[in-house]
Protein backbone atom coordinates (compact mmCIF):
# COMPACT_ATOMS: atom_id res chain seq x y z
CA UNK A 1 0.00 0.00 0.00
CA UNK A 2 2.98 2.36 0.46
CA UNK A 3 3.26 3.20 -3.23
CA UNK A 4 -0.41 3.74 -3.72
CA UNK A 5 -1.57 7.01 -5.26
CA UNK A 6 -5.18 7.91 -5.76
CA UNK A 7 -6.07 7.52 -9.45
CA UNK A 8 -6.17 10.80 -11.32
CA UNK A 9 -9.84 10.43 -12.15
CA UNK A 10 -10.69 10.34 -8.45
CA UNK A 11 -8.61 13.40 -7.67
CA UNK A 12 -10.07 15.15 -10.68
CA UNK A 13 -13.65 14.41 -9.73
CA UNK A 14 -12.97 15.47 -6.16
CA UNK A 15 -11.64 18.80 -7.36
CA UNK A 16 -14.65 19.16 -9.66
CA UNK A 17 -16.97 18.58 -6.70
CA UNK A 18 -15.17 21.24 -4.69
CA UNK A 19 -15.37 23.68 -7.59
CA UNK A 20 -19.10 23.03 -7.95
CA UNK A 21 -19.55 23.53 -4.24
CA UNK A 22 -17.83 26.90 -4.47
CA UNK A 23 -20.07 27.74 -7.40
CA UNK A 24 -23.22 26.87 -5.45
CA UNK A 25 -22.19 29.04 -2.55
CA UNK A 26 -21.28 31.98 -4.79
CA UNK A 27 -24.45 31.77 -6.85
CA UNK A 28 -26.53 31.64 -3.69
CA UNK A 29 -25.50 35.25 -3.05
CA UNK A 30 -26.49 36.52 -6.49
CA UNK A 31 -30.05 37.89 -6.65
CA UNK A 32 -31.43 35.59 -9.36
CA UNK A 33 -34.89 35.32 -7.90
CA UNK A 34 -36.49 31.94 -8.37
CA UNK A 35 -33.57 30.95 -10.56
CA UNK A 36 -31.48 30.53 -7.42
CA UNK A 37 -33.13 27.22 -6.58
CA UNK A 38 -33.13 26.06 -10.19
CA UNK A 39 -29.40 26.68 -10.50
CA UNK A 40 -28.70 25.01 -7.17
CA UNK A 41 -30.66 21.92 -8.19
CA UNK A 42 -28.88 21.67 -11.54
CA UNK A 43 -25.50 21.87 -9.83
CA UNK A 44 -26.57 19.27 -7.28
CA UNK A 45 -27.61 16.94 -10.09
CA UNK A 46 -24.21 17.34 -11.76
CA UNK A 47 -22.51 16.54 -8.47
CA UNK A 48 -24.62 13.44 -7.98
CA UNK A 49 -23.72 12.29 -11.48
CA UNK A 50 -20.02 12.71 -10.76
CA UNK A 51 -20.33 10.73 -7.54
CA UNK A 52 -22.28 7.94 -9.25
CA UNK A 53 -20.02 7.73 -12.28
CA UNK A 54 -16.60 7.99 -10.67
CA UNK A 55 -16.74 7.28 -6.96
CA UNK A 56 -19.35 4.55 -7.27
CA UNK A 57 -17.58 3.41 -10.45
CA UNK A 58 -20.82 3.01 -12.35
CA UNK A 59 -19.48 4.42 -15.60
CA UNK A 60 -17.96 1.17 -16.88
CA UNK A 61 -20.26 -1.41 -15.36
CA UNK A 62 -22.50 -4.01 -16.93
CA UNK A 63 -26.17 -3.64 -17.68
CA UNK A 64 -27.44 -5.42 -14.58
CA UNK A 65 -25.62 -3.07 -12.22
CA UNK A 66 -26.87 -0.05 -14.11
CA UNK A 67 -30.43 -1.34 -13.87
CA UNK A 68 -30.12 -1.65 -10.11
CA UNK A 69 -28.54 1.78 -9.77
CA UNK A 70 -31.15 3.24 -12.09
CA UNK A 71 -33.89 1.68 -9.96
CA UNK A 72 -32.84 3.91 -7.08
CA UNK A 73 -33.19 6.95 -9.28
CA UNK A 74 -36.50 5.77 -10.68
CA UNK A 75 -37.91 5.25 -7.19
CA UNK A 76 -36.76 8.69 -6.16
CA UNK A 77 -38.75 9.89 -9.16
CA UNK A 78 -41.86 8.12 -7.80
CA UNK A 79 -41.42 9.84 -4.46
CA UNK A 80 -41.13 13.25 -6.08
CA UNK A 81 -43.88 12.66 -8.62
CA UNK A 82 -46.61 11.42 -6.29
CA UNK A 83 -45.48 13.71 -3.47
CA UNK A 84 -45.61 16.78 -5.70
CA UNK A 85 -48.95 15.64 -7.04
CA UNK A 86 -50.40 16.44 -3.62
CA UNK A 87 -48.40 19.60 -3.13
CA UNK A 88 -49.24 21.14 -6.50
CA UNK A 89 -52.94 20.38 -6.48
CA UNK A 90 -53.83 21.36 -2.92
CA UNK A 91 -56.68 23.82 -2.61
CA UNK A 92 -56.72 26.23 0.34
CA UNK A 93 -59.51 25.35 2.74
Amino acid sequence: MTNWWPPLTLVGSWLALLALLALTVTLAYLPLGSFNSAVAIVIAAIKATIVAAFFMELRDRGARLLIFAGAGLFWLGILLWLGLMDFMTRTPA
Partner: protein
Amino acid sequence: MTEPDYLNSAYTLRSWFFTTDHKRIAILYFATLIGFFFIGGAAATAIRIELATPQADLVSSDTYNRLFTMHGVIMVWFFLIPSIPNTLGNFIVPLMIGARDLAFPRLNLMSWYLFIAGGSVTLFAILAGGIDTGWTFYTPFSTLYSNSYVIVAVTGIFIAGFSSILTGLNFIATVHRLRAPGLTWYRLPLFIWSLYATSVILVLATPVLAITLVLLATERFLGVGIFDPRIGGDPLLFQHLFWFYSHPAVYIMILPGMGVVNELISCFSRKPVFGYKFVAWASLAIAAVGFLVWGHHMFVSGQSLLASLVFSFMSFIVAVPSAIKVFNWTATLHKGSLRFDAPMLYALAFLGLFTIGGLTGLFLACLAFDVHATDTYFVVAHFHYIMVGGMVTAYFGGLHYWWPKITGRLYSEYWARTAAVLIFFGFNLTFFPQFVLGAEGMPRRYHVYPPEFQVWNVLSSGGATILAAAYLLPMFYLGYSLFFGRRAPANPWDAPGLEWQTPSPPPEFNFESQPVVTRAPYQYGPDFAAEPQNA
Protein backbone atom coordinates in the same frame (compact mmCIF):
# COMPACT_ATOMS: atom_id res chain seq x y z
CA MET B 1 -17.00 -40.28 9.68
CA THR B 2 -19.22 -37.50 8.37
CA GLU B 3 -18.73 -33.79 8.94
CA PRO B 4 -20.15 -32.57 12.29
CA ASP B 5 -23.37 -30.61 11.93
CA TYR B 6 -23.33 -26.83 12.28
CA LEU B 7 -24.39 -26.97 15.92
CA ASN B 8 -21.59 -29.32 16.87
CA SER B 9 -18.78 -27.88 14.79
CA ALA B 10 -17.63 -25.73 17.73
CA TYR B 11 -18.96 -24.79 21.15
CA THR B 12 -17.20 -21.62 22.23
CA LEU B 13 -18.97 -18.29 22.67
CA ARG B 14 -16.60 -16.94 20.09
CA SER B 15 -17.79 -19.51 17.59
CA TRP B 16 -21.28 -18.06 17.99
CA PHE B 17 -20.70 -14.33 18.29
CA PHE B 18 -18.13 -14.16 15.51
CA THR B 19 -19.67 -16.78 13.29
CA THR B 20 -20.27 -16.08 9.63
CA ASP B 21 -22.36 -19.23 9.20
CA HIS B 22 -25.80 -18.13 8.01
CA LYS B 23 -27.35 -20.89 10.12
CA ARG B 24 -25.81 -19.69 13.34
CA ILE B 25 -26.61 -16.07 12.54
CA ALA B 26 -30.20 -17.15 12.02
CA ILE B 27 -30.17 -18.61 15.53
CA LEU B 28 -28.68 -15.39 16.95
CA TYR B 29 -31.48 -13.43 15.32
CA PHE B 30 -34.03 -15.92 16.52
CA ALA B 31 -32.99 -15.57 20.14
CA THR B 32 -32.92 -11.78 19.86
CA LEU B 33 -36.36 -11.64 18.29
CA ILE B 34 -37.89 -13.80 21.02
CA GLY B 35 -36.68 -11.17 23.48
CA PHE B 36 -38.25 -8.33 21.52
CA PHE B 37 -41.48 -10.26 21.03
CA PHE B 38 -41.75 -10.55 24.81
CA ILE B 39 -41.10 -6.86 25.38
CA GLY B 40 -43.64 -5.84 22.74
CA GLY B 41 -46.02 -8.45 24.10
CA ALA B 42 -45.69 -7.12 27.64
CA ALA B 43 -46.80 -3.68 26.43
CA ALA B 44 -49.75 -5.25 24.61
CA THR B 45 -50.74 -7.11 27.77
CA ALA B 46 -50.77 -3.89 29.77
CA ILE B 47 -52.85 -2.21 27.05
CA ARG B 48 -55.45 -4.98 27.01
CA ILE B 49 -55.71 -5.03 30.81
CA GLU B 50 -56.25 -1.28 30.85
CA LEU B 51 -58.91 -1.49 28.16
CA ALA B 52 -60.94 -4.11 30.03
CA THR B 53 -62.81 -1.30 31.79
CA PRO B 54 -64.04 2.05 30.46
CA GLN B 55 -62.22 4.07 33.14
CA ALA B 56 -58.52 4.62 33.53
CA ASP B 57 -57.55 2.27 36.30
CA LEU B 58 -54.13 0.87 35.56
CA VAL B 59 -52.09 3.67 33.98
CA SER B 60 -52.25 7.40 33.36
CA SER B 61 -52.99 8.81 29.92
CA ASP B 62 -49.36 9.71 29.51
CA THR B 63 -48.17 6.21 30.38
CA TYR B 64 -50.78 4.76 28.05
CA ASN B 65 -49.35 6.80 25.17
CA ARG B 66 -45.92 5.44 25.98
CA LEU B 67 -47.22 1.88 26.14
CA PHE B 68 -48.80 1.81 22.69
CA THR B 69 -45.82 3.61 21.20
CA MET B 70 -43.46 1.07 22.69
CA HIS B 71 -45.68 -1.75 21.49
CA GLY B 72 -45.77 -0.42 17.92
CA VAL B 73 -42.11 0.54 17.66
CA ILE B 74 -40.84 -2.78 19.01
CA MET B 75 -43.25 -4.98 17.11
CA VAL B 76 -42.78 -3.26 13.75
CA TRP B 77 -39.06 -2.58 13.62
CA PHE B 78 -37.64 -5.03 16.09
CA PHE B 79 -39.86 -8.01 15.52
CA LEU B 80 -41.96 -8.16 12.35
CA ILE B 81 -39.60 -6.65 9.80
CA PRO B 82 -36.69 -8.95 10.66
CA SER B 83 -38.88 -11.89 11.72
CA ILE B 84 -39.08 -14.30 8.80
CA PRO B 85 -36.28 -12.84 6.62
CA ASN B 86 -33.57 -12.87 9.23
CA THR B 87 -34.40 -16.14 10.97
CA LEU B 88 -36.04 -18.60 8.58
CA GLY B 89 -34.76 -16.72 5.54
CA ASN B 90 -31.21 -16.60 6.79
CA PHE B 91 -31.28 -20.27 7.62
CA ILE B 92 -33.20 -21.66 4.67
CA VAL B 93 -32.33 -19.49 1.66
CA PRO B 94 -28.81 -20.87 1.06
CA LEU B 95 -30.05 -24.42 1.70
CA MET B 96 -32.96 -23.99 -0.68
CA ILE B 97 -30.81 -22.78 -3.53
CA GLY B 98 -27.99 -25.25 -2.93
CA ALA B 99 -25.41 -22.70 -1.73
CA ARG B 100 -22.85 -22.89 1.06
CA ASP B 101 -23.80 -19.56 2.57
CA LEU B 102 -25.20 -16.14 1.69
CA ALA B 103 -23.19 -14.04 -0.76
CA PHE B 104 -21.69 -11.82 1.97
CA PRO B 105 -21.39 -13.84 5.19
CA ARG B 106 -19.58 -11.12 7.12
CA LEU B 107 -22.11 -8.50 6.10
CA ASN B 108 -24.70 -10.87 7.47
CA LEU B 109 -23.03 -10.89 10.86
CA MET B 110 -22.63 -7.12 10.74
CA SER B 111 -26.33 -6.81 10.06
CA TRP B 112 -27.04 -8.65 13.32
CA TYR B 113 -24.69 -6.39 15.27
CA LEU B 114 -26.32 -3.30 13.80
CA PHE B 115 -29.67 -4.72 14.78
CA ILE B 116 -28.46 -5.27 18.35
CA ALA B 117 -27.00 -1.75 18.45
CA GLY B 118 -30.19 -0.14 17.13
CA GLY B 119 -32.33 -2.25 19.43
CA SER B 120 -30.25 -1.29 22.46
CA VAL B 121 -30.51 2.41 21.69
CA THR B 122 -34.27 2.23 21.27
CA LEU B 123 -34.63 0.10 24.40
CA PHE B 124 -32.62 2.70 26.23
CA ALA B 125 -35.11 5.37 25.12
CA ILE B 126 -37.90 3.19 26.46
CA LEU B 127 -36.22 2.51 29.78
CA ALA B 128 -35.25 6.15 30.22
CA GLY B 129 -38.90 7.13 30.14
CA GLY B 130 -40.32 6.14 26.79
CA ILE B 131 -41.76 7.85 23.73
CA ASP B 132 -45.31 9.16 23.49
CA THR B 133 -45.69 9.88 19.78
CA GLY B 134 -47.07 6.60 18.48
CA TRP B 135 -44.98 4.43 16.17
CA THR B 136 -45.70 6.90 13.35
CA PHE B 137 -43.84 9.86 14.94
CA TYR B 138 -46.19 12.40 13.33
CA THR B 139 -45.08 16.02 13.30
CA PRO B 140 -45.65 18.61 14.70
CA PHE B 141 -46.16 16.63 17.90
CA SER B 142 -42.88 14.76 17.58
CA THR B 143 -40.85 17.83 16.67
CA LEU B 144 -42.44 20.59 18.72
CA TYR B 145 -44.42 19.30 21.66
CA SER B 146 -43.40 15.86 22.79
CA ASN B 147 -41.27 15.83 25.92
CA SER B 148 -40.12 12.28 25.46
CA TYR B 149 -37.04 10.57 24.09
CA VAL B 150 -37.88 11.03 20.43
CA ILE B 151 -34.38 11.60 19.12
CA VAL B 152 -32.90 8.62 20.96
CA ALA B 153 -35.67 6.34 19.77
CA VAL B 154 -35.38 7.36 16.13
CA THR B 155 -31.60 6.99 16.31
CA GLY B 156 -32.10 3.35 17.28
CA ILE B 157 -34.52 2.82 14.40
CA PHE B 158 -32.10 4.58 12.05
CA ILE B 159 -29.32 2.16 12.99
CA ALA B 160 -31.57 -0.88 12.74
CA GLY B 161 -32.54 0.35 9.27
CA PHE B 162 -29.01 -0.28 8.07
CA SER B 163 -29.32 -3.83 9.28
CA SER B 164 -32.40 -4.14 7.05
CA ILE B 165 -30.58 -2.69 4.07
CA LEU B 166 -27.64 -5.09 4.47
CA THR B 167 -29.96 -8.05 4.72
CA GLY B 168 -31.78 -6.98 1.56
CA LEU B 169 -28.54 -6.52 -0.36
CA ASN B 170 -27.28 -9.87 0.80
CA PHE B 171 -30.39 -11.75 -0.31
CA ILE B 172 -30.48 -10.02 -3.69
CA ALA B 173 -26.83 -10.81 -4.41
CA THR B 174 -27.29 -14.38 -3.16
CA VAL B 175 -30.25 -15.14 -5.37
CA HIS B 176 -28.51 -13.70 -8.40
CA ARG B 177 -25.13 -15.30 -7.90
CA LEU B 178 -25.31 -18.43 -5.79
CA ARG B 179 -28.05 -20.60 -7.28
CA ALA B 180 -27.03 -24.23 -7.75
CA PRO B 181 -26.31 -25.41 -11.29
CA GLY B 182 -29.61 -25.97 -13.08
CA LEU B 183 -31.59 -23.84 -10.63
CA THR B 184 -33.12 -21.40 -13.10
CA TRP B 185 -35.37 -18.56 -11.91
CA TYR B 186 -38.53 -20.50 -12.66
CA ARG B 187 -37.23 -23.48 -10.69
CA LEU B 188 -36.79 -21.40 -7.56
CA PRO B 189 -39.13 -22.17 -4.68
CA LEU B 190 -41.65 -19.37 -4.24
CA PHE B 191 -40.24 -18.63 -0.78
CA ILE B 192 -37.16 -17.35 -2.61
CA TRP B 193 -39.20 -15.21 -4.98
CA SER B 194 -41.04 -13.57 -2.13
CA LEU B 195 -37.87 -12.94 -0.13
CA TYR B 196 -36.31 -11.46 -3.25
CA ALA B 197 -39.26 -9.09 -3.61
CA THR B 198 -38.99 -8.27 0.09
CA SER B 199 -35.31 -7.48 -0.33
CA VAL B 200 -36.00 -5.10 -3.18
CA ILE B 201 -38.33 -3.16 -0.88
CA LEU B 202 -35.82 -3.27 1.97
CA VAL B 203 -33.15 -1.74 -0.22
CA LEU B 204 -35.31 0.86 -1.93
CA ALA B 205 -37.53 2.00 0.94
CA THR B 206 -35.39 1.86 4.07
CA PRO B 207 -33.03 4.69 3.02
CA VAL B 208 -36.05 6.99 2.80
CA LEU B 209 -36.97 6.10 6.37
CA ALA B 210 -33.41 6.89 7.43
CA ILE B 211 -33.54 10.28 5.72
CA THR B 212 -36.96 11.04 7.18
CA LEU B 213 -35.81 10.28 10.70
CA VAL B 214 -32.72 12.45 10.25
CA LEU B 215 -34.90 15.31 9.02
CA LEU B 216 -37.17 14.83 12.01
CA ALA B 217 -34.25 14.97 14.42
CA THR B 218 -32.86 18.01 12.58
CA GLU B 219 -36.04 19.97 12.98
CA ARG B 220 -36.56 18.90 16.57
CA PHE B 221 -32.98 19.51 17.63
CA LEU B 222 -31.82 22.42 15.46
CA GLY B 223 -35.13 24.06 14.65
CA VAL B 224 -34.51 23.96 10.91
CA GLY B 225 -37.82 24.43 9.08
CA ILE B 226 -38.63 21.21 7.27
CA PHE B 227 -42.07 20.21 8.44
CA ASP B 228 -43.15 23.27 10.43
CA PRO B 229 -44.96 25.72 8.15
CA ARG B 230 -44.19 28.66 10.45
CA ILE B 231 -40.52 28.36 9.58
CA GLY B 232 -40.91 27.37 5.96
CA GLY B 233 -41.65 23.66 6.14
CA ASP B 234 -44.53 21.66 4.70
CA PRO B 235 -46.83 20.13 7.32
CA LEU B 236 -47.60 17.04 5.27
CA LEU B 237 -44.07 16.35 4.09
CA PHE B 238 -43.37 14.18 7.10
CA GLN B 239 -46.37 11.98 6.43
CA HIS B 240 -45.48 11.65 2.75
CA LEU B 241 -41.92 10.60 3.53
CA PHE B 242 -42.89 8.36 6.42
CA TRP B 243 -45.53 6.47 4.46
CA PHE B 244 -43.38 6.26 1.35
CA TYR B 245 -41.34 3.93 3.53
CA SER B 246 -43.99 2.53 5.80
CA HIS B 247 -46.55 1.36 3.31
CA PRO B 248 -43.93 -0.65 1.40
CA ALA B 249 -42.75 -1.74 4.84
CA VAL B 250 -46.10 -3.36 5.52
CA TYR B 251 -45.32 -5.51 2.50
CA ILE B 252 -41.92 -6.25 3.98
CA MET B 253 -44.00 -7.59 6.83
CA ILE B 254 -46.30 -9.80 4.76
CA LEU B 255 -44.41 -11.00 1.65
CA PRO B 256 -42.11 -13.35 3.59
CA GLY B 257 -45.19 -14.83 5.28
CA MET B 258 -46.75 -15.41 1.87
CA GLY B 259 -43.52 -17.09 0.83
CA VAL B 260 -43.66 -19.53 3.73
CA VAL B 261 -47.30 -20.33 3.03
CA ASN B 262 -46.43 -21.43 -0.52
CA GLU B 263 -44.07 -24.05 0.85
CA LEU B 264 -46.54 -25.26 3.47
CA ILE B 265 -49.61 -25.48 1.27
CA SER B 266 -47.88 -27.32 -1.52
CA CYS B 267 -46.16 -29.73 0.87
CA PHE B 268 -49.31 -30.66 2.76
CA SER B 269 -51.44 -30.84 -0.38
CA ARG B 270 -48.71 -32.88 -2.08
CA LYS B 271 -49.06 -30.72 -5.20
CA PRO B 272 -47.10 -27.98 -6.95
CA VAL B 273 -48.37 -24.48 -6.25
CA PHE B 274 -51.11 -23.69 -8.75
CA GLY B 275 -50.09 -21.03 -11.27
CA TYR B 276 -46.45 -20.86 -10.21
CA LYS B 277 -45.47 -18.00 -12.52
CA PHE B 278 -48.41 -15.86 -11.49
CA VAL B 279 -47.55 -16.27 -7.83
CA ALA B 280 -43.89 -15.54 -8.49
CA TRP B 281 -44.57 -12.35 -10.41
CA ALA B 282 -47.32 -11.32 -8.01
CA SER B 283 -44.61 -10.93 -5.37
CA LEU B 284 -42.67 -8.53 -7.54
CA ALA B 285 -45.86 -6.73 -8.55
CA ILE B 286 -46.69 -6.20 -4.89
CA ALA B 287 -43.19 -4.87 -4.27
CA ALA B 288 -43.48 -2.38 -7.13
CA VAL B 289 -47.10 -1.23 -6.87
CA GLY B 290 -46.77 -1.12 -3.09
CA PHE B 291 -44.75 2.05 -3.59
CA LEU B 292 -47.62 3.87 -5.28
CA VAL B 293 -50.28 3.74 -2.60
CA TRP B 294 -48.85 5.43 0.48
CA GLY B 295 -51.29 8.35 0.43
CA HIS B 296 -54.11 6.06 1.60
CA HIS B 297 -52.82 6.77 5.09
CA MET B 298 -53.41 10.48 4.52
CA PHE B 299 -57.00 10.70 3.30
CA VAL B 300 -58.04 12.96 6.17
CA SER B 301 -54.72 14.78 6.52
CA GLY B 302 -55.57 17.61 4.13
CA GLN B 303 -53.74 16.24 1.12
CA SER B 304 -55.28 17.29 -2.19
CA LEU B 305 -58.41 15.58 -3.44
CA LEU B 306 -56.64 14.55 -6.62
CA ALA B 307 -53.91 12.88 -4.59
CA SER B 308 -56.48 11.06 -2.49
CA LEU B 309 -58.28 9.82 -5.59
CA VAL B 310 -55.10 8.54 -7.21
CA PHE B 311 -53.89 6.85 -4.03
CA SER B 312 -57.29 5.29 -3.47
CA PHE B 313 -57.33 3.91 -7.01
CA MET B 314 -53.79 2.54 -6.72
CA SER B 315 -54.71 0.85 -3.43
CA PHE B 316 -57.35 -1.13 -5.26
CA ILE B 317 -54.77 -2.14 -7.86
CA VAL B 318 -52.29 -3.36 -5.24
CA ALA B 319 -54.85 -5.77 -3.87
CA VAL B 320 -54.96 -7.63 -7.20
CA PRO B 321 -51.66 -9.53 -6.89
CA SER B 322 -52.50 -10.44 -3.28
CA ALA B 323 -55.83 -11.78 -4.44
CA ILE B 324 -54.11 -13.76 -7.19
CA LYS B 325 -52.06 -15.46 -4.54
CA VAL B 326 -55.03 -16.27 -2.34
CA PHE B 327 -56.93 -17.77 -5.26
CA ASN B 328 -53.92 -19.78 -6.36
CA TRP B 329 -53.36 -21.19 -2.88
CA THR B 330 -56.99 -22.20 -2.75
CA ALA B 331 -56.63 -23.83 -6.17
CA THR B 332 -53.57 -25.65 -4.87
CA LEU B 333 -55.66 -27.17 -2.09
CA HIS B 334 -58.29 -28.26 -4.61
CA LYS B 335 -58.09 -32.03 -5.10
CA GLY B 336 -54.83 -32.19 -3.16
CA SER B 337 -54.14 -35.07 -0.78
CA LEU B 338 -54.43 -32.82 2.23
CA ARG B 339 -52.60 -33.56 5.46
CA PHE B 340 -53.35 -31.53 8.54
CA ASP B 341 -49.99 -31.52 10.27
CA ALA B 342 -49.33 -28.52 12.50
CA PRO B 343 -47.60 -26.38 9.82
CA MET B 344 -50.60 -26.85 7.54
CA LEU B 345 -52.98 -25.71 10.28
CA TYR B 346 -50.99 -22.50 10.53
CA ALA B 347 -51.06 -22.10 6.75
CA LEU B 348 -54.83 -22.52 6.62
CA ALA B 349 -55.23 -20.02 9.46
CA PHE B 350 -53.08 -17.61 7.49
CA LEU B 351 -55.27 -18.00 4.43
CA GLY B 352 -58.44 -17.01 6.26
CA LEU B 353 -56.98 -14.27 8.42
CA PHE B 354 -54.97 -12.66 5.64
CA THR B 355 -58.04 -12.58 3.43
CA ILE B 356 -60.05 -10.76 6.09
CA GLY B 357 -57.19 -8.33 6.65
CA GLY B 358 -56.78 -7.67 2.94
CA LEU B 359 -60.47 -7.20 2.25
CA THR B 360 -60.89 -4.73 5.10
CA GLY B 361 -57.89 -2.91 3.64
CA LEU B 362 -60.02 -2.42 0.55
CA PHE B 363 -62.81 -0.98 2.70
CA LEU B 364 -60.31 1.52 4.07
CA ALA B 365 -59.06 2.33 0.59
CA CYS B 366 -62.52 3.71 -0.22
CA LEU B 367 -62.37 7.43 0.46
CA ALA B 368 -65.88 7.76 1.81
CA PHE B 369 -65.60 4.81 4.17
CA ASP B 370 -62.17 5.79 5.39
CA VAL B 371 -63.27 9.23 6.56
CA HIS B 372 -65.54 7.37 8.95
CA ALA B 373 -63.11 4.63 9.93
CA THR B 374 -59.77 6.37 10.06
CA ASP B 375 -58.15 6.43 13.49
CA THR B 376 -60.72 4.00 14.84
CA TYR B 377 -60.32 0.44 16.01
CA PHE B 378 -61.35 -0.68 12.52
CA VAL B 379 -57.87 0.26 11.30
CA VAL B 380 -56.28 -1.47 14.27
CA ALA B 381 -58.23 -4.63 13.51
CA HIS B 382 -57.36 -4.43 9.80
CA PHE B 383 -53.64 -4.35 10.25
CA HIS B 384 -53.55 -6.84 13.08
CA TYR B 385 -55.41 -9.34 10.91
CA ILE B 386 -52.62 -9.00 8.39
CA MET B 387 -49.58 -8.54 10.56
CA VAL B 388 -50.47 -10.88 13.42
CA GLY B 389 -53.08 -13.14 11.83
CA GLY B 390 -51.05 -13.28 8.63
CA MET B 391 -47.38 -12.77 9.25
CA VAL B 392 -47.00 -14.06 12.81
CA THR B 393 -49.08 -17.11 11.96
CA ALA B 394 -46.94 -17.79 8.90
CA TYR B 395 -43.86 -17.35 11.06
CA PHE B 396 -45.09 -20.02 13.46
CA GLY B 397 -46.04 -22.25 10.53
CA GLY B 398 -42.60 -21.93 8.99
CA LEU B 399 -40.93 -22.44 12.33
CA HIS B 400 -42.75 -25.72 12.83
CA TYR B 401 -42.11 -26.82 9.25
CA TRP B 402 -38.37 -26.23 9.36
CA TRP B 403 -37.85 -26.92 13.08
CA PRO B 404 -36.69 -30.50 12.42
CA LYS B 405 -34.21 -29.17 9.86
CA ILE B 406 -32.92 -26.39 12.09
CA THR B 407 -32.62 -28.33 15.34
CA GLY B 408 -32.53 -31.95 14.22
CA ARG B 409 -35.40 -32.74 16.58
CA LEU B 410 -39.10 -33.59 16.23
CA TYR B 411 -41.66 -31.81 18.40
CA SER B 412 -44.91 -33.10 19.80
CA GLU B 413 -47.44 -33.01 16.99
CA TYR B 414 -50.32 -33.11 19.46
CA TRP B 415 -49.21 -29.97 21.29
CA ALA B 416 -48.28 -28.21 18.06
CA ARG B 417 -51.77 -28.72 16.67
CA THR B 418 -53.32 -27.65 19.94
CA ALA B 419 -51.32 -24.43 19.87
CA ALA B 420 -52.29 -23.75 16.25
CA VAL B 421 -55.99 -24.13 16.99
CA LEU B 422 -55.75 -22.01 20.15
CA ILE B 423 -53.89 -19.28 18.27
CA PHE B 424 -56.57 -19.17 15.59
CA PHE B 425 -59.35 -19.05 18.14
CA GLY B 426 -57.64 -16.57 20.49
CA PHE B 427 -56.66 -14.34 17.62
CA ASN B 428 -60.17 -13.99 16.26
CA LEU B 429 -61.62 -13.40 19.70
CA THR B 430 -59.06 -10.66 20.27
CA PHE B 431 -59.34 -8.80 17.02
CA PHE B 432 -62.76 -9.41 15.52
CA PRO B 433 -64.48 -7.35 18.24
CA GLN B 434 -62.18 -4.50 17.28
CA PHE B 435 -63.80 -4.33 13.83
CA VAL B 436 -67.14 -3.89 15.56
CA LEU B 437 -65.74 -1.28 17.93
CA GLY B 438 -64.23 0.63 15.06
CA ALA B 439 -67.38 0.52 12.99
CA GLU B 440 -69.25 1.90 16.01
CA GLY B 441 -66.73 4.70 16.25
CA MET B 442 -64.33 3.86 19.07
CA PRO B 443 -61.14 5.82 18.38
CA ARG B 444 -57.73 4.18 18.67
CA ARG B 445 -55.02 5.37 21.07
CA TYR B 446 -57.37 6.32 23.97
CA HIS B 447 -57.64 4.38 27.20
CA VAL B 448 -60.92 5.82 28.44
CA TYR B 449 -64.05 5.05 26.48
CA PRO B 450 -67.86 5.23 26.76
CA PRO B 451 -69.29 2.31 28.77
CA GLU B 452 -71.35 0.98 25.84
CA PHE B 453 -68.08 -0.22 24.26
CA GLN B 454 -67.11 -2.35 27.22
CA VAL B 455 -68.62 -5.67 26.08
CA TRP B 456 -66.51 -5.81 22.95
CA ASN B 457 -63.41 -4.68 24.82
CA VAL B 458 -63.84 -7.39 27.42
CA LEU B 459 -64.20 -9.99 24.67
CA SER B 460 -61.04 -8.66 23.09
CA SER B 461 -59.07 -8.72 26.32
CA GLY B 462 -60.34 -12.23 27.03
CA GLY B 463 -59.22 -13.34 23.57
CA ALA B 464 -55.85 -11.76 24.18
CA THR B 465 -55.41 -13.93 27.26
CA ILE B 466 -56.01 -17.06 25.21
CA LEU B 467 -53.75 -15.78 22.45
CA ALA B 468 -50.93 -15.02 24.89
CA ALA B 469 -51.18 -18.49 26.40
CA ALA B 470 -51.21 -20.04 22.93
CA TYR B 471 -48.11 -18.11 21.93
CA LEU B 472 -46.33 -19.32 25.05
CA LEU B 473 -47.15 -22.99 24.43
CA PRO B 474 -44.52 -23.53 21.71
CA MET B 475 -41.86 -22.29 24.12
CA PHE B 476 -42.57 -25.40 26.15
CA TYR B 477 -42.99 -28.17 23.60
CA LEU B 478 -40.38 -26.80 21.20
CA GLY B 479 -38.02 -26.21 24.11
CA TYR B 480 -38.71 -29.72 25.35
CA SER B 481 -38.01 -31.19 21.91
CA LEU B 482 -34.56 -29.57 21.89
CA PHE B 483 -33.51 -31.85 24.71
CA PHE B 484 -35.84 -34.82 24.61
CA GLY B 485 -37.37 -34.81 21.13
CA ARG B 486 -36.84 -37.71 18.78
CA ARG B 487 -34.05 -37.22 16.24
CA ALA B 488 -35.36 -35.82 12.98
CA PRO B 489 -34.60 -37.60 9.72
CA ALA B 490 -33.22 -35.55 6.84
CA ASN B 491 -36.62 -35.28 5.18
CA PRO B 492 -39.46 -35.70 7.69
CA TRP B 493 -42.16 -34.28 5.35
CA ASP B 494 -41.11 -36.17 2.21
CA ALA B 495 -40.54 -32.88 0.45
CA PRO B 496 -38.51 -32.41 -2.74
CA GLY B 497 -36.85 -29.08 -1.84
CA LEU B 498 -33.04 -28.98 -1.70
CA GLU B 499 -33.07 -28.06 1.99
CA TRP B 500 -34.41 -31.53 2.71
CA GLN B 501 -31.68 -33.31 0.75
CA THR B 502 -29.04 -32.74 3.42
CA PRO B 503 -28.96 -34.08 6.99
CA SER B 504 -30.90 -32.49 9.86
CA PRO B 505 -29.28 -30.41 11.27
CA PRO B 506 -27.20 -29.59 8.19
CA PRO B 507 -23.42 -29.84 8.18
CA GLU B 508 -21.44 -26.64 8.51
CA PHE B 509 -21.18 -26.15 4.75
CA ASN B 510 -24.71 -27.34 4.04
CA PHE B 511 -24.12 -30.03 1.39
CA GLU B 512 -21.52 -32.74 1.10
CA SER B 513 -21.43 -32.28 -2.64
CA GLN B 514 -22.77 -29.52 -4.85
CA PRO B 515 -26.45 -30.27 -5.61
CA VAL B 516 -27.60 -30.04 -9.22
CA VAL B 517 -31.19 -29.21 -10.03
CA THR B 518 -32.95 -30.83 -12.94
CA ARG B 519 -36.60 -29.87 -12.59
CA ALA B 520 -39.25 -27.48 -11.34
CA PRO B 521 -39.94 -27.17 -7.60
CA TYR B 522 -42.78 -28.86 -5.71
CA GLN B 523 -42.66 -32.15 -7.63
CA TYR B 524 -44.55 -34.07 -4.98
CA GLY B 525 -45.75 -37.49 -5.92
CA PRO B 526 -44.85 -41.13 -5.70
CA ASP B 527 -41.96 -40.92 -8.14
CA PHE B 528 -40.11 -37.90 -6.83
CA ALA B 529 -37.96 -39.87 -4.43
CA ALA B 530 -36.76 -42.07 -7.25
CA GLU B 531 -35.09 -39.24 -9.08
CA PRO B 532 -31.77 -38.28 -7.53
CA GLN B 533 -31.44 -34.62 -6.50
CA ASN B 534 -27.80 -34.84 -5.56
CA ALA B 535 -25.39 -35.34 -8.40
